[in-house]
């Protein structure tokens, strides 16, 4: 299988960056896309060139590292996959594949395809937790959670923090990421108490960090490797409206 790879190269955060085109003659249908990138890098190293920097770790679709736009789609063509699960069978012999980093002001490029997603960390720190001290927990079955609710909470909790939603969104909004966390905790009795406050804090932080607003186009959901649903955004909105009302009543929530 012969392929042409058009890869975004950027030496550092300040570098302007440009596309470079590479020919790969020994690609195989059996490879995953990251193995193709490995092969490209092996070739570049052999030629004494700097290999393409990209993030990867678990290679089984759960760590959320392998952020890249492949042919204009986060994690490449395919439903509910990460780049490490993207099979070369999705491409044709002789095809030109364009590989780019996530693009938003909130994820500045560090090098080539590696972007800085620390803005997600800041959103998490703004409220992505249940306020419970280690050692103060009650017996698990004190909380009764219906199976439906527990399953729904799990669907939200399945988010891997990869940033595909932001990359896909025309507004660079992180609503799906924020909603997944807010919704997970809002569905569970453990997290419900502070659910409203959490929604406010995380959303405010998202805004502050320069992510765009949600216009419900649904491309985040379509590109989410874990299929996190837009209905969690609706729940975030509900929680947020409640927060607005409470704030109107008393400044302290």
């Amino acid at each position, binding site marked *: 299988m012969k392929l042409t790879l058009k890869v975004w190269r950027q030496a550092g955060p300040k570098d302007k960056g440009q596309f470079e085109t590479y020919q790969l003659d020994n690609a195989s249908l059996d490879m995953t896309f990251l193995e193709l990138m490995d092969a490209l890098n092996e070739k570049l190293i052999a030629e004494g060139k700097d290999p393409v920097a990209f993030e990867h770790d678990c290679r*089984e679709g759960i760590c959320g*590292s392998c952020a890249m736009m492949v042919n204009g789609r986060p994690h490449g063509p395919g439903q509910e996959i990460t780049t490490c699960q993207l099979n070369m069978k999705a491409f044709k012999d002789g095809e030109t594949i364009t590989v780019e980093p996530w693009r938003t002001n909130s994820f500045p490029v560090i090098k080539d395809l590696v972007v800085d997603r620390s803005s997600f960390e800041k959103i*998490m720190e703004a409220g992505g937790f249940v306020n419970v001290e280690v050692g103060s927990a009650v*017996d698990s079955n004190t909380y009764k959670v219906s199976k439906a609710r527990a399953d729904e909470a799990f669907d939200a909790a399945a988010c891997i923090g990869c940033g595909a939603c932001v990359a896909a969104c025309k507004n660079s909004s992180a609503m799906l990421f924020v909603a997944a966390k807010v919704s997970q905790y809002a569905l569970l009795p453990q997290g419900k108490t502070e659910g409203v406050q959490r929604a406010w804090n995380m959303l405010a932080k998202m805004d502050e960090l320069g992510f765009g607003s949600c216009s419900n186009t649904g491309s985040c959901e379509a590109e989410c490797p874990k299929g996190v649903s837009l209905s969690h955004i609706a729940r975030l909105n509900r929680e947020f409206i409640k927060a607005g009302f409470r704030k109107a009543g008393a400044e302290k929530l």
Partner: protein
Amino acid sequence: MAKLDAKIPNGPLAQKWTNHKNSLKLVSPANKKKMDIIMVGTGVAGAAAAASLGQMGYNVKVFCFQDSPRRAHSVAAQGGINATKNYRNDNDSVYRLFYDMIKGGDFRAREANVYRAAEVSSSIIDQLTAQGVPFAREYGGNLTTRSFGGVQVSRTFYAQGQTGQQVLLGSYSALKRQAAKGSVTMYERRQMLEIVTIDGKARGIICRNLVTGEMERHSAHAVVMATGGYGTIYFLSTLAVNSSGEAAYAAYKKGAFFANPSFIQIHPSCIPQLNEYQSKLTLMSESLRNDGRVWAPKAQGDKRKPNEIPVEERDYYLERRYPAFGNLVPRDIASRAAKERCDAGYGVGETGYAVYLDFSDAIKKQGKKVIENKYGNLFDLYEKITGESPYKMPMKIYPAGHYTMGGLWVDYNLMTTIPGLYAIGEANFSDHGANRLGASALMQGSGDGYFVLPITINDYLADEIQTPKISTDLPEFHDAENEAKARIEKLMNINGKTSPLAFHKKLGKIMWDRAGMARNAEGLKKGIEEINQLEDEFYKDLNITGSTDSMNQTLERALRVAASFEIARLIIYDALNRNESCGAHFREEYQTQDGEALRNDEEFSYVSVWEYQGNQKMPNLHKEDLVFEEVKVQQRSYK
């Protein structure tokens, strides 16, 4: 070096931890504020411990090489986490979990530590639930459980096939909470290269900032290694490609002893290698063996499709050999049994190195819907990779490297032989003996992180309250930084032709062939020669392009591979020394007539603890004798 003192408390087994806790020194809140702790690694254990220590009032500095703690490889654990809740009234108890682990570990683990791990297991589930971890529930709203290998009760809590992710995110959220409060400072994208010791005590680390390439010095009153295992030693494994054990090895070189390095778990159910390009193998959770039946054809080289082979021509070899536990035998046994079938020519698939894991009976009995509910995401994962649906065709599975029971030697307080240096989670050796039971890695990591280390570390720090903040300008920091720099210089200046990845692949092949599922003295000895040869070549022909003053992933990898050579040798020294078969360590010379592991309790009922003597030099062997006060050591049987 002083004799090994495991500091196991006196008294009856069930009282040891309680008594010990009562005797440990405390640090007052005012003093805690003045003290720094470095946490290297942010998996389940590291994140949990950092969060707990931060909550207690210490200043915790947390380091990981990923861009976020949430990406640590604990995230990939699938099946579940054990706890002795006995919610099902199936006569589970702390003692039973303890006994299962001791027996599962083939009587090569330290009794007191294992008992403690079982003892705190129940609190872990409560803690995680309180943090909002969405464990699977019954329709009535209570938590549900499932069974796992090597166990006859149902004590494994789970969140579909992503339990590790959920448990990690639980600890991660606790960590983020502390970070928001300022008690924890995060240092992401740092590769730890050296431990700094001052007057014999661990006082800091040297790490490379992976974005700027700068060397950084960080000091603390104590350092905790939560750095995971070294399973990528086989190159192809179920582990994240960066899980190399490099950091733990740096501690070993600095004087921390390394225990049982050859105990590496080979997981029985992984998707077999499909081609030569493959960079990793994907695990299929052990929980699948709850409902899946393992079989191989009765005829050698049977090339028919699995559905065309009638039941009477199938050999359900696990059920045949181990009627009491059937498909749920521990991992080491299931792995070896699969290897035995394949080596004897009964394997399936193109290479003949696979066996079937068949759900057709379960689907018939319970219905597709129930099976989908239990394993849907695993079935999808399998189909994504292989293109075959497990609902229609049996899965093809083969064993692959998965978890390292061995690790830094620690005493009962989880302190290594370097005072002030602790090791928790997979990075230490303490709880799993020669084989880990399924769903107990998350349990041990969480236990160490939430409920053990945050208690025991005070005992050490109580004597350090007079120590002021440690300056990073001390000569020890200077020397350690220079050492790290020299290592990098050395690698950068080779200017050869071969990439670190290519060396890693070769090393992996040597290790899998010589020190994989079955080992023998001759092969191991050859292995050492091959490793030495490859290492020499590495230092002559390595090629790292790019520079050291910015992000350089080739350099990161080269540093890991360099450490892997040394770890590989350590594994082989240990495997050679242990002239017996136990758990995951199977020496072909030592087996029973029907091919089971043959232990030698007379000579080898000890933890082999290695002390570094220099690269390519035979390390010193210390022995920690295993004393079993409570359990009767016997031949392990799952028949």
